[in-house]
């Protein structure tokens, strides 16, 4: 029993928590931006997969790691443009379009993978981001390593949260994004182009999602394999709700979730096979559903979320 609690006292545990949280943080921020602007982006799972592949392949083909990040972002923008074009000016169902984008993005990723690497039996490896410890801070006991000895892409994730929060709450652009998700008619009456803002938000958000996916292949692990995103995209959607569409709370949610995930892996090792491992693996998804239920009552969602804006409709 004591072993179950000892897990929390290991610095390596917290290192794993932050590492597991990083792709969730990035993708959750991405989805948050989309939803704040009023667009539900169910393409997240596929965009993460595409980002994972593109990021990895860029490095595999000889590129720099940050170039990989950039290319992942680019592919995110491309799929964001697709999703945005279909849902914003054309006003198609955001649910159906999102599922379609997920199917398209992941199948394109798998197709490209098979095409570019036809002969491989096991996924080829690359040299991923290495941990970059910050001197002095990383020596703090227990949390020092977790917060200050991570890979540059993890630092990027935390910076992204701060950036998203700043833009949303302290800039005119952020005000426009929030307003567009609350009352597009009000924005139109103030001379703001609702379509452009929503499109831009979806593209930017999708870029972050893709980078979140790339984290898996060029920072957390070092190769791309099928089904590697494994439902993280859907979990991020739950995290946005859990965080009440606020970057800070969503970050907290991601950390909490990652903590739970890291814990169940170690708990498995400690209890040693008495409980079927599948039950442990189920917990993240069950937890996400519970989070949704808890937040549903209190949800202060953007009022115009999922309502397509048709100009001049009588």
């Amino acid at each position: 029993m004591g072993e179950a609690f000892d897990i929390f006292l290991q610095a390596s545990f917290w290192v794993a928590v932050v590492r597991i949280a990083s792709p969730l943080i990035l993708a959750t921020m991405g989805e948050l931006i989309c939803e704040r602007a009023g667009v539900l982006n169910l393409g997240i799972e596929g965009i993460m997969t595409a980002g994972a592949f593109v990021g990895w392949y860029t490095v595999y083909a000889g590129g720099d790691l940050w170039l990989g990040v950039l290319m992942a972002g680019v592919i995110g923008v491309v799929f964001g443009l697709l999703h945005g074009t279909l849902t914003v000016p054309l006003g198609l169902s955001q649910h159906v379009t999102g599922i379609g984008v997920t199917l398209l993005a992941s199948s394109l990723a798998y197709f490209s993978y098979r095409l570019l690497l036809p002969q491989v039996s096991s996924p080829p490896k690359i040299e991923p981001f290495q941990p970059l410890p910050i001197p002095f801070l990383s020596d703090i006991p227990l949390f020092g390593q977790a917060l200050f000895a991570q890979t540059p892409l993890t630092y990027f994730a935390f910076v992204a949260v701060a950036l998203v929060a700043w833009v949303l709450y302290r800039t005119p652009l952020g005000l426009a994004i929030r307003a567009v998700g609350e009352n597009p008619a009000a924005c139109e009456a103030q001379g703001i182009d609702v379509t452009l803002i929503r499109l831009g938000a979806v593209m930017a958000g999708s870029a972050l999602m893709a980078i979140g996916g790339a984290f898996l292949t060029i920072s957390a692990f070092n190769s791309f394999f099928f089904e590697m995103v494994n439902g993280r995209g859907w979990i991020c959607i739950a995290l946005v709700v859990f965080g009440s569409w606020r970057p800070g709370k969503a970050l907290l949610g991601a950390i909490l979730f990652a903590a739970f995930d890291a814990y169940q892996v170690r708990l498995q090792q400690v209890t040693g096979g008495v409980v079927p491992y599948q039950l442990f693996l189920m917990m993240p998804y069950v937890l996400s559903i519970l989070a949704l239920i808890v937040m549903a009552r209190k949800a202060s969602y953007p009022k115009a979320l999922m309502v397509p804006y048709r100009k001049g409709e009588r």
Partner: protein
Amino acid sequence: MRIEPVDAVSWRATLGYPALAILATLAFAGVLVMLAGANPFAVFGLVLKGAFGSQFAFLETLTRATPLIFTGLAVAVAFRAKLWNIGAEAQLYIGGVVTVVLGTGALPWAGFALKPAIIVAVMMAGALVLLVPTLLKSRFGVDEVVTTLLLNFIVLLFVSMLLEGVLKNPMGMGWPQSRRVIEAASLPKILQGKRLHYGFVLALVAAISVWFVMARTTLGYEMRAVGHNPQAARFAGIRVNLVLVKTALLSGGLAALAGFSEVAGLKGNLSLDLSPGYGYTGIVVAMLAMLHPLGVIAAAIFVAGIFVGADSMSRAARVPSYIADVTVATALLTMVAAILLTRYRIRWR
């Protein structure tokens, strides 16, 4: 740029835009084929041949279409009532589990009693799986898209647990799979030596039944009304939550039948690779059919043809079989856009 509803829907638009959608899809697929270094027309030819070019191919396509008809119906029924059932995959697997629990010898009944019993149990199980997210939606306002999606992962893990535990086939040489289904519970083949089984017939019966319910019964009317405008439906006296529950029961049950059909008709047992994503592909089938139950049959055969043909093609040409998944996803997006264009007109500034 503005979108305005069209005054009257012209039949030229109803045929023309979907046709354009299919052309656009084929063009995009063609580009990918060229990137793979092959000739698009040759490849399309191979796909067509692999899907419909011989009796064997055609029967294979119909066999592949069978689960897609079930999941397509499940999705169509749900989407009509604006219940976003993305969890057909989970419901399918539960159907497989129940089939195996009841059909591998636990009930030593004769076929004419056992099969209907299993069908009823399967549908109830699938219904229950979808009922949970549906109740969460109507009681707590939790979006069912995410909950049904997450349930897919949970159920799959649950099945994996069962297959390594209570359902494990002791003579399975270590692979996690269930015992084989007994004769009385199986769906026989339609033609000797071919893979097509009576699950296909069951699927057709299901499609016709669903069509009748949707178009001719009070339940179907309620479902459509709730899907179009839940507030107006409620005002008219329709009990919206009850209708959603009934929709969930029907939709979940249909998806579970896909699992029954695959286990009792094709595979003979349950393993983790029972479904290569039929639940998700069912969404494409339903949308391509514009949520029409009879259209689902055609759309399922079309989509199955793409997959079967692509499998066969990729053995001959250098193009990865994932081209089928790409094509199908593209078809979904172009078709949804086409449907919009038939009903609305775009006015440029």
